[in-house]
């Protein structure tokens, strides 16, 4: 048997921990994806930092 001696409450806890863990994992994944996109956006916009008023060449 895979889970010997598991009571009904063990299974209930297992099912709910799965759900909570999945939600936390998905939110963390979305945050990671957002940070990655922000980083890419930042790299893309950091093209030209020449001071606009500086004409000294």
């Amino acid at each position: 048997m895979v889970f010997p001696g598991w009571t009904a409450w063990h299974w209930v806890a297992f099912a709910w921990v799965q759900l909570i863990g999945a939600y936390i994992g998905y939110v963390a994944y979305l945050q990671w994806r957002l940070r990655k996109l922000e980083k890419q956006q930042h790299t893309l916009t950091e093209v030209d930092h020449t001071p606009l008023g500086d004409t000294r060449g």
Partner: protein
Amino acid sequence: MSLKPLTLPRAEARQPAAADLSRRPTWLNVLGLVSLALFAIGLYMALVTSPPDVQQGQLIRIMYAHVSVAWICFLAIFICAIFGCLYLWRGNRTHDVIACASAELACFYAGLTLVGGMTYSRPTLNTWWAWDAKLTATALLFVLLVGYFIVRGILDDPQRRGRVSAVISLIILADVPIIYFASEWWRTLHPSKAINLDGSGITMDPVMLQTLLVNVGIAALIYGLLMVERVRIGKLEVRLEQDQYNQHNRKGPDAQHQPETVRI
């Protein structure tokens, strides 16, 4: 007198929309906290308030987690198909972004339904899995949703990607009634429905029904919250794709010839 040079990065000054997209609005944070509190209430109702079942005993408490995610999976597929159809009709890329976000969440909830169902099945039916109609159709749903993203990854052209994935979303939608009616149409290990939407009645204790509906409502709220967050990411991806295109062609963001009209 020496003038202080203005050192604002030019590209950044031209694109305030991208920065706005990546900033999470306050109401979303508040809604996140509200959902967390409501989830705790739903969990309390499932684990404490709900009475044990005559046949399943305490194991009935798994049902509140399992059924709520399964129903939200159906909802996510339905919304994905609606926005897929809207994209086919109107060609607005925002509709494709929403359809894709809902498909990702449907895939997430389908995975949870399968794993949660196996966890429920092992102690109640003494088996993890059976290749019967309902379970196989649910597994097929998950595979189709994974396929949806594989196809999206293959296609480079945004228009073609949107159209093909909209058609796939309709195929996925066709699997939903098969899953729903599988326990009536075929012999299956999965228990038959306790709530019949055809009006033939509810064979469930009122407290259990209340707990289930509260948990479904909370799962729907969390789905809505995750959708808002995922759509924001999708819009940011579109914006980035557009910016990369503009930079590649050495054009400004105000260029007339875009790969596709994007209305965000």
